[in-house]
């Protein structure tokens, strides 16, 4: 099962390596990781999506994160009301005849065609996990040539 954990850390040398090292040393898989500054430039905010089969592993992950000296707080979003978003940039097959179809698909989330050239369009879309999954499935029929995603970010309601 996938869990979202947010971690507030000191914005210091080597912190990201410490966090990712903790996961790799214990054989835990990070599904996605997004890092940014907060309003306080001395503190960074990480949203980590992690794959954990059972509660016990999730507990260990949280405890081990908490043990790191540069970690200020760890919040598990799993059982809490939260909003999460992900940004996708994709190059999709495009012909003027597809335009309506593509725009219709994108209207189901926050998305738009940024640019098109020849037989390719670059689209952006923002949505929660469900929306992004549905969009990518639908885009699959059109033909996706390249795809980049930010990884999820999340905040408590």
């Amino acid at each position, binding site marked *: 099962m996938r869990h979202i954990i947010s971690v507030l*850390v*000191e914005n210091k*040398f*080597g912190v990201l*390596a*410490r966090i990712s*090292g903790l996961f790799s*040393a214990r054989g835990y898989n990070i599904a996605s990781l997004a890092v940014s500054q907060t309003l306080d430039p001395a503190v960074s905010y990480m949203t980590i999506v992690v794959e954990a089969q059972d509660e*016990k592993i999730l*507990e*260990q992950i949280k*405890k*081990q994160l*908490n*043990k*790191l*000296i*540069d*970690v*200020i707080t760890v919040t598990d979003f799993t059982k809490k009301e939260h909003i999460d978003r992900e940004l996708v940039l994709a190059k999709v097959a495009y012909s003027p005849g597809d335009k309506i179809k593509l725009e219709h698909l994108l209207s189901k989330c926050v998305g738009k065609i940024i640019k098109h050239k020849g037989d390719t369009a670059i689209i952006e879309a923002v949505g929660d996990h469900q929306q992004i999954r549905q969009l990518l499935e639908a885009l699959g029929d059109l033909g996706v040539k390249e795809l980049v995603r930010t990884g999820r970010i999340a905040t408590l309601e």
Partner: protein
Amino acid sequence: MKMTGAQVLIECLKKEGVRVMFGYPGGVVLPIFDKLYDADIKFILTRHEQAAAHAADGYARATGKVGVCLATSGPGATNLITGIATAFMDSIPIIAITGQVKTNLIGSDAFQEADITGITRPITKHNYLVKDAGELSTIIREAFYVASTGRPGPVVIDLPVDVQLGETDFVWPEEVKMRGYSPTYEGHHGQIKKAAKAIEASRKPILYAGGGVIISGADKELKALAEKTNIPVTTTLMGMGGFPGGHKLFLGMLGMHGTAFANHAIMESDLIIAVGARFDDRVTGRLDVFAPYAKIIHIDIDPASISKNVNVDIPIVGDAKTILAGLLPLIKKAPDTAAWLKQVEKWRKDLPLKYGSSGKIKPQYVIEQIYEATRGEAIITTEVGQNQMWAAQWYKYEKPRTFISSGGLGTMGFGFPAAMGAKMGCPDKIVFDIAGDGSIQMNIQELATCVCNKIPVKVAILNNHYLGMVRQWQELFYNRRYSQTCITGPDFVKLAESYGAAGIRVTKKEEVRPAIEKALSIDNVVFMDFQIEEEENVFPMVPAGEAINRMIGGMA
């Protein structure tokens, strides 16, 4: 007052109470060594940086203070790694200071550059790369605080040479402020109450104590609890000395080479009170069948240790000494353990530790004799292998910090340098390294350090001409195919003498005790080469991955 980074370092070390440190020089630490030349800190030049780290570790284990080691960048720093990892696994507070190339060369593959903060990240409690002399005093203060509080551990401070030379105002930070770090000492009161109730209601309780008891200094409270409630006590390897070895409630060590009676007792218990122990796989054996009838109370300062391996019913996070002191008065009536103690005593009688009596010297006998000759008052360090297990089984440790051994990492070559460190920390104590002929060869060069600095530790080499513990596994599980475990050694007596130390060879049982007495009377390092029974095994033994009451023989 203006000072260079190197001066700041020395000032801070003095303020932290550092009187002795261990290490080895090199190009990028010359500014520090230059300042050490006039400083009032005893510097022990080891012959290998690995030994410096182990010596700092041995010093810390013996004294309870923070041990300090210093090495140059690159190869000097990487030579510390095994020692740092050893300290990390056993939660020992050491500070390792490493030199680093100039800040503007970092990342350029400069001469003797190694990314030491990167390399040590998974084996330190925390580490620092100092970029500016101005932040040095704060970092050192934090480093000592982090190393020695909560669950202790090693901290690395990587110090570029230009930072050592950089000028700064010296400011000693009175307070340490770290928002991401605040260890819990007080246990949760409600949980402690629950624990008291569970103890009162138990019929077959057992105390299972680990290294945390020694680290927190909870031995008196542990003894008081055991005596008040009549609960038998078993310890891990790291917990030896946390409960008096000769006490009638003491069952000895549990686990892979634990006593049969300790293993049976924990497997049959209805309540395990784990204190500062982490349910290591060498202790639990096969996890899914471990202690099937027991409720578990787990007292530990590290929340991540709780419910990591076994599910805990009553977790109490905090300092063992504080929690036990709080728990004691809450227990109003002792549980009725009379029948249980009778059962335990029957196991003790039926399944004692024992060894045979063939012609050759038995290693167990050597250890018993060391115990008698030192009246249990020595500090014993060990190497790793059979020697370590025999030292755990056959010497009675009455006091904390008298048994010093690499438990978590199992580092061969640890015991001799750790003995040097322990002796530097406790000069009035007899310090004995119990060694295998394989292990001693891993840091044998420290003979020079001992002789040169007059550190008169005694080394009892249990010489079986094998990598004994590995040979034992090959005997039992690989059909006696002794692949690469027959090891040759030098003439240990001559070797010791060539370094200016003393050497004694012992080939007969009758010579064992006189040799030990003689070694004790010599004011120098002594290597005792005990030619022991070559294929002696450590029993009982739980095969890896088996339930811990499925032991292979205690033979006779």
